[in-house]
């Protein structure tokens, strides 16, 4: 048995030395590490983000790259698991010696890899992973473009204050995931601040096949508003079954995630009409390049993009901008340049600031969208609205 181990070691060592020899030959590019789930259950979002990173780098390199050097992306598959993500992070830092790392989708992977970046003092620009505590640890090598999960419902809160003032009771349904639980917790707090009463609060296992028991409870409580944090299949099933059960709150609101995807409208059919959702981005927002990004994405890949893709696209520009301004390409100088970031991107203005317990966190507005006749329209705040909101939601019987 020791013989096998020995032989395997020799093979591994031989392959390693080959690869190291290989990496020496291509020194003209700036290498940027990207950590994404390219296989496994989160691969769909990993794919959208990877394509967006590729697109952004293609554009940057076509315009002459960074100070004459081209950027080369080293994608590492974290498979959505923390220990694999950590292997990938360690590899990027100690083998590839990249000056900066970006990506990071799943909250668990980000939580396990951010301390590694901090310990090795290599800047990590997190694109998506949204659990709050990652930017609450005072890590000075960790930056986040995405707002933390607790801020996703901000626009909903201002809508409740500005328009839906007659909403007094709320039912809160959420999937039992990091995203679902942290969003629901922060919404609960917001609801308390607004003086709303939570009449039903139910977590469910993501991928449920029947929501009738939960929805029956909701119907009995007859809330003014139903707030749901769900991915796409659960989201459409929740709406279809709400229609079957004739649940008529004044508004249905989704907490981002599944409710903004085109697949939601397709699979829920007309039950998706008038449903609101919190979101971080739509391409109709007045940001430079937002519309062009989604049009180019459609043209290049023949598929729709959404806010995760826009985030990845913008994050790449943030990283390139920092590399351009950095005094040298050492991780330390790149970190310094990142900290001084102040730019406008297709995802909105990006600047890493400290507030509350958070450090080096980008502060972003959130928005409300509403499905109207199968189209996703921005409705809140008013200055970015593409259509006026329809409130309250029409009764199921009175819809045509």
């Amino acid at each position, binding site marked *: 048995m020791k013989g096998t181990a020995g032989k395997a070691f020799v093979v591994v060592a031989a392959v390693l030395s080959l690869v190291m020899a290989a990496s020496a030959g291509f020194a003209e590019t700036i290498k940027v590490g990207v950590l994404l789930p390219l296989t496994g259950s989160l691969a769909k979002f990993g794919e959208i983000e990877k394509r967006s990173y590729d697109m952004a780098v293609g554009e940057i390199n076509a315009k002459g790259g960074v100070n004459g050097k081209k950027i080369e992306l080293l994608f590492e598959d974290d498979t959505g698991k923390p220990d694999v993500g950590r*292997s990938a992070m360690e590899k990027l830092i100690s083998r590839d010696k990249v000056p900066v790392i970006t990506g990071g989708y799943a909250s668990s992977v980000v939580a*396990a890899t951010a301390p590694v970046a901090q310990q090795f003092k290599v800047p990590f620009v997190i694109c998506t992973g949204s659990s709050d505590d990652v930017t609450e640890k005072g890590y000075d090598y960790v930056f986040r473009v995405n707002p933390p999960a607790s801020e996703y419902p901000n626009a909903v809160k201002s809508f409740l204050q500005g328009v839906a003032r007659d909403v007094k009771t709320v039912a809160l349904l959420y999937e039992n995931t990091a995203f679902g639980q942290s969003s629901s917790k922060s919404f609960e707090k917001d609801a308390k601040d607004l003086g709303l009463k939570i009449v039903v609060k139910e977590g469910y296992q993501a991928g449920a096949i029947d929501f009738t028991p939960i929805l029956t409870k909701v119907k009995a409580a007859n809330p003014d508003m139903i707030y749901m944090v769900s991915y796409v299949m659960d989201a459409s099933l929740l709406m279809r079954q709400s229609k079957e059960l004739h649940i008529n709150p004044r508004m249905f609101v989704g907490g981002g995630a599944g409710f903004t995807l085109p697949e939601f409208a397709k699979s829920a059919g007309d039950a998706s009409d008038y449903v609101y959702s919190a979101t971080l981005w739509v391409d109709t927002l007045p940001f430079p390049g937002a519309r062009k990004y989604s049009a180019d994405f459609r043209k290049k890949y023949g598929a729709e993009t959404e806010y995760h893709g826009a985030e990845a696209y913008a994050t790449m520009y943030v990283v390139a901008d920092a590399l351009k301004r950095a005094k040298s390409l050492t991780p330390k100088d790149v970190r310094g340049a990142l900290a001084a970031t102040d730019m406008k991107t297709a995802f909105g203005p990006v600047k890493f600031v400290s507030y509350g317990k958070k450090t080096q966190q980008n502060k972003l507005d959130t928005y409300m969208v509403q499905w109207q006749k199968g189209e996703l329209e921005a409705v809140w705040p008013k200055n970015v609205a593409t259509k006026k909101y329809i409130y309250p939601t029409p009764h199921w019987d009175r819809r045509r």
Partner: protein
Amino acid sequence: MKKNLYQLILPAVLALLPMAVKSEYFLHLMILFLLWVVIGSSWNILAGYTGQVSFGHAAFFGVGAYTAGLLFQHLQVSPWWGMALGGIVAMLIGLPFGAICFPLRGAYFALASLALGEGIRHIATVAEGFTGGMMGIMIMPTFTSKAPYYYIALGLAVLSVLSIRAIINSKPGYYFVSIREDQDAAASLGIDTTLYKNISLSISAFWTGMAGALYMNYMGFIDPNVVFSLHDYSVMAILVAIVGGVGTIYGPAVGAFIMVAFQEFFRTGFFGLFDYLGKATGSPAFTALSGAVRQAHVLGFGILVIVVILYLPNGVVGDWEKIKRNVFRINPAG
């Protein structure tokens, strides 16, 4: 004589490794490998030697990890104390479970263990106030360097394998094997089968819990889906043992090495070999191949397991003679 020499050289090499190898990445893979040695060996004493196949070892692993994490979260106790307690708490979970479920035999025990793992995962998910739910527990790892973790993992691996070997070669070990071979015969000889099954389970749960506590300390983040994962821990523990050799002392260690190396090998596209060939030859075929290989690691696992079951039903260690004969053409008989 030759065998004794090996037994001295291998630990010496492993002990000196962090001084010779400066790559943190390589050490990280070695730590994962050592963790799997512990988990695989623990699963093996219960399933391989005592014949009680468990599909729920993630429960013990996760409970160990959560012991360390929760102590820190609620009481600000260093998670290293959790390491001391992780194994014991896992054992305490195992005891009532064993007492209730060991009257069940064969597939029924396996199903009960599956339910244990999944049940605890649900509890950890839903008890948000106590466990933090799916938001998990995050701590800052104590050491910047990998070497301390490596030595602790190495110590854990060596101790677990040696203690299991000592037990297997002692009287309880023979009891375990007799229960595996024929429980009724064992009972008729006066062996308290439920008691010895529980002893085997306790040892198994203890070491798995220790591995879990080390995981918390080392990785710095856990959530229920990570440490109670049916696929990533319960099933991987079985695969590690099957590939290495069920019911052999060193089988799980070999299996752990193969599985960790295999996963990383695929994930990185044979350590970047195809990417290199693609660049060196300018042929897009290699680059495409690299992408395909990276995406195929789950498929690769499946094929590996099928091959092992078909051709090496006793695992690499269990069928070592067969490998020597057929692959290396060494025939001890002549």
